[in-house]
């Protein structure tokens, strides 16, 4: 609802209505529940969303681990020296 749910529309400015994968699933899944290809397409959409989420989370986790590892190693070095 927040994004405006404009199917098939890419936002051309900051205020334009658009759609996200999550918004489409929430808004329209019930209309295709009896449609075999529709349901499977929404499963494909969920798969894409899951892959995007996993990719972003893996990148974030790697960043936090690198930063955290650096800080801890330096802290130990500072204490021992």
């Amino acid at each position: 609802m927040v994004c405006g749910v404009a199917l098939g529309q890419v936002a051309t400015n900051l205020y334009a209505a658009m759609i996200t994968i999550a918004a489409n699933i929430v808004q329209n899944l019930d209309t295709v529940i009896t449609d075999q290809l529709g349901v499977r397409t929404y499963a494909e959409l969920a798969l894409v969303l899951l892959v995007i989420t996993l990719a972003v989370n893996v990148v974030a986790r790697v960043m936090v681990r690198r930063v955290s590892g650096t800080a801890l190693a330096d802290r130990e070095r500072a204490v021992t020296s």
Partner: protein
Amino acid sequence: MLALILVVLIVKAWPAILINGWGFFTDSVWHTGAQYGSSVHSHGITYLGGQKYGALPQIIGTLETSAIALIIAVPVSVGAALIVVERLPRRIAAVVGIFLELLAGIPSVVIGLWGVLTFGPFIATYIAPVLNKIPIPFFQGDPGHGQGLLVSGLVLAVMVIPIVASTARDLIRQVPILPREGAVALGMFRRRGRATGHPALGWLRPGRGRGARPGPGARRDHRGWPWSAASPSARWPPTCTRR
């Protein structure tokens, strides 16, 4: 569990992956087919003729809103974490920390509803007219009732700020006290925030050695360059003979 979800989704989506093909990622048309048209049987499923599913606008929308959320949430969260760790008295910091964690527990539906009913109209009424003055086409447009890309990104930012802030707070707490004291000694005055932000963020930055710039009163080496003992790349404890 994650693998199970992934396998179930792939199995469930496999016929659609074969039927939609690469067009799913490159097309913008989302058509659920002709209700009274003839049915088609293919790849083990029966579906209405004329169905076409292209998810490009949705994928772009998801990435756009996520980018806006991160652009706004990361500086705000790191700033909030710095204030909580470095600036606030311990008791107030503990209370703010509790509220940060409580904020993370608010259901996303509640934040979304707040976004639609309160935050969106507020942005459309007060913030959008200001942003409209920026002479970049992407910032100009009719905000309507506040339902659009900007508000989606902002609402998403509100959802992730507590998580990013608590992670940043835990990381900043790992910074030893020595670099901070060294920064103060070298002229990064605590009052101006340099002694807190620069060493802490510099220590946490993976690319080390670019951590901090000394203040105007900083000691300079024989070449006249200010060297930074607050930087994690500096030898610790600092000595005046270091080059």
